[in-house]
């Protein structure tokens, strides 16, 4: 039996994905809108879902809209933005109780579809513009959301690394957009962009839960209809090979230094070498049995957290760690030694098998949550591939030591970013 039984059906303007499972006490609808990441739309896209979720034509205030959700046994409405490679993805999700676990048997699923359709297609609009109050409030919140990155130094240093490393690429844009572009957005311009996004974005609807496929198809068909489109594709990620490593040091009033290192892997999800890359990352820094954790934390006592992770659709690997300001040189040199060890094939069969087992475990655990199922399946939409979870795990199993060492040799250090305290060097 397949691990996830996904059925995909082409609807008007979008694909409907149904995953039927009895393991949850709720049903989940996830709406995805994907477009290339661009400077002139990133801020509009960041604002749009927040405006859509704060009021609609039938529920013209946040209070009314949220009171309706409370009535539906606390159905949740949640919006989110993400960068997937050079794409900007808007997610709107609705999760609702399955009435078979309630003492009140009123059916709820269709109401969730109706509600999602309301949010998406019946916004609070007057004369070709979104409600002005709503837009102003959400602009203010967006500015705070963008600003808050600065206050969380772990997020900030990661953002700064990407900004420095991908300077000439769309990927450097912040997921929530640009602060200086917020002011120029008007209720009219946002409404125009809303129409454009619904007409041009690649759209997908996921339905996860104890749901009959036929019912999902009927509700979706009745309530959500859009024009057919050929979604825009983002230009392939440019491969940048620098002659030398870019070192960036920034001083701020912080107690702990944040060391973030960016590497180019030049391998993305869907490439034949992606599986070897994933195992490589696991041995190198992905887990608490990895080389980074063992050598930077357990042996040298330099850090509490040190890890590496992949940006699967962009072909990057990021290492992050929090260290004492004075330990920069030692930490960087230990991290470099670990990558050299990987290149030289200096890791055991056992480390490799252990890592494969843990990655498999992680994938299987991910698809125990409705959100996780959607994230795993959506990789295929972003990459234009059709890789099942089973194939993913089988291919990973076949990865050899030689393939891992070969990948390690392709991984090149691009930028070292260090956020350091003011007393550094004293």
């Amino acid at each position, binding site marked *: 039996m397949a691990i996830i039984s996904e059925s995909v059906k082409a609807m008007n303007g979008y694909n409907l994905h149904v995953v039927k*499972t009895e393991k949850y006490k709720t049903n989940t609808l996830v709406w995805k809108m994907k477009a290339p990441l661009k400077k002139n739309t990133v801020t509009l896209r960041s604002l749009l879902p927040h405006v859509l979720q704060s009021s609609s034509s039938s529920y013209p205030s946040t209070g009314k809209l949220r009171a309706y959700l409370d009535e539906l*046994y606390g159905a949740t409405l949640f919006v989110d933005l993400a960068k997937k490679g050079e794409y900007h993805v808007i997610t709107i999700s609705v999760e609702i109780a399955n009435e078979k676990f309630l003492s009140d048997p009123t059916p709820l699923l269709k109401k969730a579809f109706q509600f999602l359709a309301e949010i998406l297609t019946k916004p609070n609009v007057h004369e070709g513009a979104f409600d002005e109050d709503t837009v102003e409030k959400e602009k203010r919140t967006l500015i*705070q959301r963008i*600003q808050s990155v600065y*206050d969380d130094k772990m997020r900030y240093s990661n953002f700064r690394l990407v900004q420095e490393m991908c300077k000439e690429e769309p990927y450097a844009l912040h997921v929530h957009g640009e602060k200086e572009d917020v002011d120029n957005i008007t209720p009219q311009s946002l409404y125009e962009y809303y129409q454009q996004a619904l007409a041009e974005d690649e759209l997908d609807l996921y339905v996860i839960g104890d749901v009959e496929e036929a019912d999902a198809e009927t509700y979706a068909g009745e309530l959500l209809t859009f024009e057919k489109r050929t979604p825009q594709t983002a230009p392939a990620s440019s491969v940048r090979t620098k002659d030398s490593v870019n070192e960036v040091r920034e001083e701020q009033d912080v107690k702990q230094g944040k060391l973030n290192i960016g590497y180019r892997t030049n391998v993305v999800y869907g490439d034949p070498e992606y599986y070897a890359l994933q195992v490589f990352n696991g041995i190198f820094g992905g887990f608490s049995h990895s080389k980074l954790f063992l050598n930077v934390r*357990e042996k040298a*006592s330099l*850090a509490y957290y040190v890890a590496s992770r992949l940006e699967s659709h962009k072909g990057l690997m990021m290492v992050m760690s929090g260290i004492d300001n004075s330990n920069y040189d030692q930490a960087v040199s230990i991290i470099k030694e670990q990558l050299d060890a990987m290149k030289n094939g200096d890791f055991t069969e056992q480390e490799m098998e252990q890592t494969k087992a843990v990655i498999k*475990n992680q994938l299987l655990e991910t698809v*125990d949550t409705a959100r996780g199922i959607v994230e795993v399946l959506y990789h295929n939409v972003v990459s234009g591939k059709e890789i099942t979870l089973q194939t993913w795990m089988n291919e990973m199993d076949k990865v050899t030591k030689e393939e891992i060492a070969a990948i390690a040799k392709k991984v090149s250090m691009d930028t070292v970013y260090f956020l350091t305290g003011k007393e550094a060097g004293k």
Partner: protein
Amino acid sequence: MEKINFDQLQEELYHEKLENGLDVFILPKKGFNKTYATFTTKYGSIDNHFLPPGKEEFVKVPDGIAHFLEHKLFEKEDGDVFQQFSKQGASANAFTSFTRTAYLFSSTSNVEMNLETLIDFVQDPYFTEKTVEKEKGIIGQEITMYDDNPDWRLYFGLIENMFKNHPVKIDIAGTIESISHITKDMLYECYETFYHPSNMLLFIVGPVDPNQIMSQVRDNQSKKDYKEIPEIKRQFEEEPSESAKKKKVLEMNVQTSKCLVGIKSSTANQSGKEMLKNELSLNVLLDIFFGKSSEHYSSLYSEGLIDDTFSFDYTQEQGFGFAMVGGDTNDPDRLAEALQKMLLDAREKGAISQETLNRTKKKKIGAFLRAVNSPEYIANQFTRYAFNEMDLFDVVPTLESITLEDVEKAAGNLISEERFTVCQVVPKK
């Protein structure tokens, strides 16, 4: 082994209290890939003043020692336990709270082996002076990381304001200074006091056969020789009912200010059903006044005093409790003032309508269903409830039973100006 059925939720729970006093619970979850298990001791950062078994005098231990012990249990003579779990395809972790230390793993294969590893590593301490010293560097970096985190500083700043003596005001990880005094002998003393099976609870949730798992745990425990120990004696100083400090402002390297208003609980001596009803009533109360469908939320949002980081919570354990409301703001003083007025008004008779109460109860019931999709939530919350003599599976029936009078009574008990406090983080000038 007893079996408890929850018909409405369509769940079954298996329980046995073993001879050595260990409570074991198993909740089979069909269709899930993962099994999640937690092994928890009722021992957290607040338990810093106690009588070790066989001793005559109470001891006071350095701040942060429960958390330090949690770190050190993972290290053994032949290497660290993370390695062993990952060889068996599992991921392991642990956390320390005010009142609990939990060790856990999740895995989609080798469940029996991983369970054996979990129980055995927690029940086999190995502390040496050398490994204790090495850990000070690692935990030092953990402490420094939190020092730079404005949300953490705000949260602990608020708790520190509320309590004069109670050790809940101590940061769970301690300070770099306090952990410098920790020795291997102190760790053993804490371990022997708090890690006896009779002070612990094992919870397993996942696609497992309860009979098989229970017999495995029984066999494992019967091979170990635990002597009965007297009841654990903890000591807490008297705590005044009012907040110790009315206001604190922390200047930090941030761009956006933050503000939390807190209320110290007056009902911290409760346990069992009384505590469950009080805690749920107060969470309903806060949701009525500050949830996204409330008038207060709309007006604060419209005025630009809050954004989507705004949150609220009431939490209670044996001996302490508090409510908190707030988030990021452009005007921390105006927000503090507005929230305090709203809280005082919430106490007034007639402030809540029956209709709003019914709607909020529905919302909370739905939220519980959503929460029990998560094996992590079930295991961790069940344990927390059990340590306070409450039952997680009483949540829905208790919510259904809550009346307007219950909420008004809980509000009356909680809300009182002398127990208010304010903590703010503002950009450094």
